[in-house]
Each structure stands twice: as C-alpha cells, then as structure tokens.
C-alpha cells in the first residue's frame, strides 16, 4: 500500500513547479486583469494526482492537492507528468509549447464545460504556462 502511494506521487520538481503558479499569476497585475471575469474551479491532473485550482476574478484563490471526493469543477486539464514537464520548460519543444498543441497530439485532455476556457483562452494559456517563468524546468 505504502509502495503504491509512493508510485503515484508526482515528481517533486513538478509539484514545486505547479505550486508556484498562484504566486506567479497573482503577482502579474495584467494577467489578473485579463481574467477579471473568471471565477470558477478547475481540475489539473499531474498524471494521476488531481489538483484543484480556484480562480476568483482572475486571482488564484487556492491551489489544493486532491483527491477531494465530490468536489466539482467546470473543466479539467489532464496530462501525464512528462507532458507537463515539457510544457513548463523555459523553451518548450514543439508540440508541448501550447495547451492546444498538446491536446492535438493527445498529450493533454481538455474536458468539461469549455465555454469559460475558450472565452478566456489567452488568460488560461498564460496561467497554465506560468510555471515556465523563473528559469523553467530542469531537464
């Protein structure tokens, strides 16, 4: 049981990277301004580990590691760890540099109510890519 828990924990570098997202987004006044009409919860899966991102008027109010049973969300972004690692490189490789590029390749699934995602696409692309800032992932 303990072994299985270790096996499903996301790599420390990815956790560190994702967990910087709130500070990076909230510290960028223009990005927050861009998202001023966005208030919702989304699900981000790193491999099998769910994270819940709560956005309030463009600010990230909370980022919590799940699972949180029966917690609802508007849309979900799910990718394997390696795909997120590539996405968050400072100069990401082709096909991993953009959420829609990843989706086209099958490396990312985007599910749920996509209206807020599409209506605020610039905002969400930049929020999700925020961990790329500050030097990018070590590879």
């Amino acid at each position, binding site marked *: 049981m303990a072994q299985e828990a270790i096996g499903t924990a996301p790599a420390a570098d990815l956790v560190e990277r994702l967990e910087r997202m709130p500070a990076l987004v909230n510290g960028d006044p223009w990005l927050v301004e861009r998202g001023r009409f966005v208030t919702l919860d989304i699900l981000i899966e790193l491999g099998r580990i769910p994270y819940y991102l709560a956005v309030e008027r463009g600010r990230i109010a909370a980022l919590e590691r799940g699972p949180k049973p029966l917690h609802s969300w508007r849309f979900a972004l799910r990718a394997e760890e390696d795909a997120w690692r590539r996405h968050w490189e400072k*100069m*990401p490789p*082709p*096909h991993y*540099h*953009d*959420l*829609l*590029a990843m*989706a*086209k*390749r099958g490396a990312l699934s985007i599910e749920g109510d*996509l*209206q807020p995602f*599409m*209506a605020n*696409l*610039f905002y969400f*692309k930049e929020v999700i890519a925020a961990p790329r800032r500050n030097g990018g992932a070590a590879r």
Partner: protein
Amino acid sequence: MTAPIDPIIGRYVHVTLGGRAHRLYFEEAGRGIPLVCLHTAGADGRQFRGMMTDGAITDHFRVLAFDLPWHGKSSPPEGWQREEYRLTTRSYTEAIRGFCMALDLERPVVLGCSIGGRIVLNLAIEHAAEFRALIGLEAADYQAPWYDRDWLYRPDVHGEVSAALVSGMMAPQSPDASRWETLWHYMQGGPGIFKGDLYFYRVDGDLRDRVGKIDTKLCPLYLLTGEYDFSCTPEDTARTAKQIAGAEVTVMKELGHFPMSENPAQFRRYILPILERIRQRT
C-alpha cells in the same frame, strides 16, 4: 528631413468575383518578377510587411499582397449582411487568378501561407502553366481538424479567441513584438471570417486525392514548414510532398505557422535562397 516611410504602396483594384463587384485592397513594393503573397486564414496582407521592406527581395521582385474579400481593407461585397462568409477552393482560386489578371501580372510567382499554402497546391494542380513558381508555406494537402470551428463565431465567446487559438502556432523563439503584431491582425478580423476561411481549409479543400497530378516540370513547387507549426506539421508537408515528384521540402527551425510575420529575420534565411533560385531560372 521627413520621418522614415516604408516603401510600400497600398491601392484598390476593382475585380468581379463570383459575378459580384469587389474592391480589393492590395499593397506592393519592389520591382521585377511579380511575387503575389497570400495571407493566412482570418488575417490580411500586412503579414508580408517584412518581405516588402527587405531590399534583398524588393530589388528583384515586385512583391504584392492583396486582402481577400471580407479581410483587411477589402470590404465584403454588397449584400453581405444576410449571408455567412465561406471560402471555397473555387472562390479562392478565382480570387487569386482574378487579382493576377486585373493587374496584368505576367506569370507571377505565388507564395501562400496556411490556407494560402493549400491553395497554392490547387494552383499547381489546375493552373500550373500560369505561374513561374509556386511556394507553399505551412502547406499540406489536408490537416486533421483539432478543434470545433463553432467556437470561432458565437456571441458568448469574443472574437479575440481567433488570436488566442493561433497564438501557440508560433515558435517560442519568435520575438514578442512580431508575435503580438501577428496576433493583432487576428484580433482585427471580422466576425466569422476566420471560421469561414477554415471552411476551405477543413471541409472543402481536401486535396489528398489530387496532389499526385502536380507536374513540377510545368511549374516548380517549394514547400517550407516551421518546426513549431502543430496545425500543419512538418510531417503533414512531408506526406504531401511524397506524392509530388520534384516538390522540394524545407523544415524551418525556430518558426511556426506564420514564418513571414512571426520572425521575418529567421524566415529570410530560408526564403532568400529559394527566391534566388527562381530568379536564376528565369
């Protein structure tokens, strides 16, 4: 002393297309072999500003770019307000040939990007003898759809989504200023126009069964695709070229779907040698 002025001149030409009167806006710069440039879906001829201000090109080529009807400064035809815009293989081909004839261009080179790259393949299939050379940027005979076009034209999603959709189709190495200028053109597109162009790209313009007919001895064909283009990938272009004897493929490093506008300095490294070869053959 006056401030710097770009050597680009913009005018309007009156052309009948599909039986309707159109007033097409076009820009041009340079002298020599006519080189007609076709913009991408949902954009306009401003994408070719880099080429039109590059003396290495304009010393030998008369570079022309027209805005398709409904795009840029080419207004829609009279009566547009009660119809949905849709580009087709036929209407696109007619617009290009109509423009070339209206300006009396003698065997021009045509360079097109994205939808322009696709239609260049159709020009090679149907009208090769009319052209000196054809250049397809980000060109393939077909691309698998990767999103629902309905997102592009609906009241609960701002038209800015067109720019957001294509923002990732540029290379991360491209300079911010030219990336965002390229996106600004998308933000300025009329409602439903990008979607209407994609009708040609996704629905009407599947050339997979026809590109094998292209005879590059009649007209040379050059295909160049950026490594970061995930819409028309280098693999899509290579697959297309495999069916065309004599078609030349170049994969462009550190470029995406908008090479001429996202990074003109990087693009000229690839396009200048090809233009030089076309000049040598002439």
